[in-house]
């Protein structure tokens, strides 16, 4: 999924881009309102994160223009303006959520996942995910909800987690090398970094495995990569 981030502060922009990238999104960055509108037309993102106070066109202006052209794309404001009227105005203009600075990474992640769920629920969503629920051993993965269930336990998943589990589901029993997993879950333009992948798989195991030290869903294939026993 592609996310357009419009933010005039470079560090905030890069930080948000990293958070989104970690979650498994492809990001498009804009430093002002006009650039954001131009990139929206060129890149057709799946959803948009907008700062309000930007040079050129404000976040409100960008939101109004985007809504005029695309009534369904999810829009989320991320701003230091925290007045009630700012939030009301943003939501009235058609934004789906409003995050106020300073925010924590977990809060942004939770809000982005919530917007993604709404995005995935739309019939005309521009993504390429398998949305049908599937099972991996005793784990039921529900991609459209970015969640997995085991019995009564609900496990929150990132978009990247869903992509990885989707790949394992399609290749049950096969050993998948790191490059293949990277291409599928990180995108083709990312350079393979075994440590990044191993860390991610390790974190994923902590959440989906009953005993992460003796994994039953994702097992390690030494010298190659990983395999789903299914």
């Amino acid at each position: 999924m592609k996310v357009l981030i419009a933010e005039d502060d470079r560090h905030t922009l890069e930080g948000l881009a990293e958070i989104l990238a970690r979650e498994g999104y492809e990001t498009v960055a804009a430093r002002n309102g006009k650039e954001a509108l131009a990139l929206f037309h060129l890149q057709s993102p799946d959803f948009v994160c907008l700062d309000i106070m930007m040079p050129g066109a404000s976040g409100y202006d960008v939101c109004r223009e985007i809504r005029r052209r695309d009534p369904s794309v999810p829009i989320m404001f991320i701003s230091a303006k925290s007045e009630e009227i700012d939030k009301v105005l943003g939501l009235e203009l058609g934004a789906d959520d409003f995050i106020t600075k300073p925010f924590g990474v977990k809060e942004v992640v939770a809000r982005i996942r919530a917007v993604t769920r709404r995005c995935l629920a739309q019939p005309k969503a521009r993504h390429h995910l398998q949305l049908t629920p599937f099972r991996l051993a005793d784990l039921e993965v529900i991609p459209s909800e970015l969640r997995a269930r085991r019995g009564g336990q609900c496990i929150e998943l990132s978009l990247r987690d869903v992509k990885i589990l989707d790949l394992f589901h399609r290749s049950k029993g096969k050993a998948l090398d790191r490059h293949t997993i990277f291409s599928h879950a990180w995108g083709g333009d990312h350079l393979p970094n075994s440590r990044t992948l191993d860390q991610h798989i390790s974190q994923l195991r902590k959440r989906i495995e009953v005993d992460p030290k003796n994994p039953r869903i994702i097992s390690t294939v030494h010298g190659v990569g990983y395999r789903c026993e299914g």
Partner: protein
Amino acid sequence: MKRPLAMALALVALLPLAGLGWMGARLAASEQQRFQQRVQALLETRLNDTKGRIQEFLQAHERQFQRQIQDLGALDAPTLRDLARNDALIRQVFVLDPQGRVLQPPLDGPLTAAETDFLSRARDILAGKDLLYQGMREGASSDSQARDDSGWFTWYGGRGLNIIYWQRNASGQTIGLEVDRVRLLAEVIGILPDTSGEAADASQGRIRLQDERGTTLYQWGPYEPEEGQAPAAALALPQPFSSWKIACLVPASALQAGPSLRIQLAAGLVAAGCALIALVIYLAREYSREMREAGQRLSFVNQVSHELKTPLTNIRMYAELLEDSLQDEGEEQRRKLGVIVSESRRLSRLIENVLAFSKDRQKRLTLRRRQACADDVIRSAIEQFRPGMEAKGIEIQFDGEAALPFEFDPDSLEQILGNLFSNVEKYAGAGKLLRVDSRQQDGWTTIRVSDRGPGIPRGQTEKVFSPFHRLSDRLTEGVAGTGIGLTIARSLARLHGGDLTLLPAEQGASFELRLPIPRTEDSAAP
């Protein structure tokens, strides 16, 4: 400026002005009364002087009449007629025996025309002997100057006032002298000032000598009174003119205090009014300036707080990202990063408190209610504080029984809990315990936050919720804080329709937060 304040300031100016005006009017009336009394006293003094001169003149005549009577040898008709003939002031002389019978003029002998006329005029007086005798006694008793054996007697008859001076000799006979009224009056007038007068000042007024009918017999003084003008002061004359009076008439302006007092009063009032108005204008301007400066300070704090948000966001975000990246790194690096993360969160809370306080002062504090679970918010808040609490050795116990979602503002609840936990971390670290209990019953969600710290003195249980209130230095010594955390926490709780209170506790402090659970349509249905 707000309308009620403008009205209050106008009242501040108008009420004292009205009071001053009323007191000024009272003072002016009182001054006028005192002035009139002084003028009255002055006029009476002048009249008394005149009366005194007349009295002295009449007493001199009395003494003269006494001598003349005493000098009479025999009380026969020729002797008495000589006396009347030789003294122009004496019209007739008569003698009564002790029983009041007329001895002279001789009723049985030849009478002169004057004697006949006198007897005719005085017939009633002489016939009623008792009346003459009684009259003499009355005259004697009514006139303080008179003695029992002499005095004046007057009666009206003929052409008006008739005057008799009488004296009783050793043998009880009464010798009476009928005095010529006109001549006596002329002599009295002779001792009074000239009509033309010396003083040209009309305010000196005019003094009138008036008879029993009010007819002016003589007058002097430069003032020309109007027809029918009442006298400002009047005084009865002594015997034998006791039915006459002297009256003093003065211009009306002489009885008025004059414009100077009114001008002084008016000037004083105007000056006081100007001073009051100037004071009110000064106060209003000072108030406006202070309000403007307070607004500017608030606006500045708002602006700075907003400006702090972006760098703070970056510090917190990058620290958290780094924390995630350093999962497998050494404990020391993770601890240092943890400090950056927890401190940036603390700074976030401080900024949120400042902004919330600013909104609270401007009555703009609002909530964003949504369906959420109170226990989730409590857990999230606890997790944020766990590293700091653990570093201080504070154990966190949470007994959560508020899992039922209801509509409230989770951000506000997190802010309330943040302020309560922050206080435990700052002030109650020695107790080594933070206990949180949540319950849901009877339409209320109740969250209790307790510690085993030094607690809050009984007298401070309400004051701790006042802005900028700090407990004694013993507790807060060396501990930083803004003093607005509990104020904001209570405001947010009350905005929900609930409250935040300090419960009595034997040890430590125990705060209870109560939030109402709104009745939904489902739960409201029978």
